[in-house]
């Protein structure tokens, strides 16, 4: 495990160990690399340390040992607010469900990252003219009619539509990385496939590297690479310990 990370690796974790205060290690990852443009499927049952790993990648959590580099930038070396800015500039997130703020319109939800990242705001404007136009364009490409939907609040549209709006938000301003945490688990199998298709198309168009985390291995064939978290994580987890 001493090999050098590939020159084009966009995420590189080395000897990463993380433990919650007064707890044992939940993560002990000797090496994890994600190449630029890759569509990585990271599989792990719940409790396998997925959320912790995402927190570390997002710079919300800091590992006690090892290094974590995103876009060549060591996250440990950044201050808390610099990590927040880094996350805002370079990483989009899509969660399992309830991704949207109910008090904002769909367009406002999509342009939300641009409030916190001038870089992404500028890129979105350069691409779409105005933030609203870019948000509308993203929605259209994800198969949603902004004009018809925007009259309704985030809680009034279907879960599948909500997830697509969340993808639009994660991709506005073309961040380098999109981290999706079980984004399809609330969808039925038909919408799941079409959602993934749209997600891939959009990631390719924007040039975003996708890290997709799920427990559902049936989706794995659609991705360019599959990693099992259990395989790369040396720390025993609750799930594996409890497994028969």
């Amino acid at each position: 495990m001493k090999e050098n990370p590939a020159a084009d690796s966009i995420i590189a974790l080395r000897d990463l160990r993380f433990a919650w205060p007064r707890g044992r290690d939940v993560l002990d990852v000797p090496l994890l690399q994600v190449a630029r443009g890759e569509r990585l499927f990271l599989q792990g049952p719940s409790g396998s340390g997925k959320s912790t790993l995402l927190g570390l990648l997002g710079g919300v959590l800091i590992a006690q040992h090892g290094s974590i580099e995103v876009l060549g930038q060591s996250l440990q070396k950044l201050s808390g607010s610099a990590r927040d800015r880094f996350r805002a500039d370079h990483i989009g997130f899509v969660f399992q469900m309830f991704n949207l703020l109910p008090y904002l319109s769909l367009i406002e939800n999509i342009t939300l990252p641009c409030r916190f990242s001038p870089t992404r705001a500028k890129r979105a404007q350069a691409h779409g003219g105005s933030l609203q136009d870019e948000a509308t364009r993203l929605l259209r490409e994800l198969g949603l009619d902004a004009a018809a939907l925007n009259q309704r609040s985030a809680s009034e549209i279907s879960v599948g539509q909500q997830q697509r709006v969340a993808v639009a938000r994660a991709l506005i301003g073309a961040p380098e990385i999109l981290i999706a945490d079980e984004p399809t688990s609330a969808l039925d199998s038909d919408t799941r496939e079409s959602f993934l298709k749209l997600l891939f198309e959009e990631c390719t168009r924007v040039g975003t590297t996708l890290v997709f985390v799920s427990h559902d291995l049936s989706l794995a064939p659609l991705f360019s690479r599959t990693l099992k978290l259990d395989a790369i994580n040396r720390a025993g987890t609750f799930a594996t310990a409890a497994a028969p």
Partner: protein
Amino acid sequence: MTLLPLACKSLLNRRFAALLTVLTIAVSVTLLLGVEKIRSQARDSFASTISGTDLIVGARSGAVNLLLYSIFHIGDATNNVSWQSYQEISKSPQVAWSVPISLGDSHKGFRVVGTTPEFFTRYHYGAHHELAFDSGKPFDDVYDAVIGAEVAAKLGYTLDQQIVVAHGTGSVSFVEHKDKPFRISGILARTGTPVDASVLISLQAIEAIHIDWQSGARVPGQTISADDAKKTDLTPKTVTAFLLGLKSKVATFGLQRQINDYRAEPLLAILPGIALQELWGLVGTAESALLIVSSLVVIAGLLGMLTALVTTLNERRREMAILRSVGARPRVIFGLLVLEAALLTVLGIVLGIAFLYLVLAFAQGPIETHYGILISLNAPTSRELLLIALVTAGGIFAGIVPATLAYRNSLADGLSLRL
């Protein structure tokens, strides 16, 4: 600022709870500012009851007592001042003018004040306002009476109407001076002072209605008609108190000492301003208690807001995690909650002030007629602005508590969305 629209929309999303919080704060602010406004204006109105008079002289008692019975017509004189002493002191070289006051009778609960026509020019109130006549003129004949605005309004009296004065000062009188009725010669304009509730007649009239009386009771069998009474010598033997104006203010303390050391009879001279202050000092305790109570109500209102914000924090963890995921720093979460608290407080204050002026606009009339206090709908005074600033600061300060909790939550939760 990107936070303000977020805070507004977030509050709007919880508009019912937010409205209740705003109402709680509004009501407490209305109470606080209302108490402050009425307190300060009552004090002003109180302090402006008499002005331009340098000394008030009466029988020896206490300063507050003398002020209360001579000016406010509350309570009774302990003793009278002899006409001779009054004459002598009035003729002192320092004295510019003097106005005697003779009390002891009433008309339907309103005090009858025996005095001289100088009263109408010498009695000043507020910032040297003189008494003005709504209609008619000062008393001329012995059986003429001038009534205050409140008397006229309450009893519906008009000029030239006949009234009968009762003996004693109770509101229900059994002994009336029916044989010597008075004609209303003038009605005074409203002043907001006890003069409004007075019936003013001449000193001679006081003498005339008591001419066939002795020791507070009618002498049986001895009746002197109103016209006959007029022909007798009506020089009073005593007065209750008198007001003095001096040629030079510098002489005030000297003359006061002179009167207090007066050999012929025990007298007391007081400076109205000092006595008013002393009297307000007594009332002031209740006034501060009111202000403290209303401040506590405001604190209760802000605590209500605090509770409302804190209880929603758990269900808003998701919202915070979403904001964090799109790049909001924990301090943005902190700022968002402080801003929400500030918005609620400011809205509450604005609504509270609106309530206050609305209530005052309706209550202005009744307060003036019942208590003689004119509450003007002026812009907030500097003290009121200070109170408003304090409430705002208190609201923002209260917002720090939920903000700190949310800050800690968002540090601990990170991006994990908890249900």
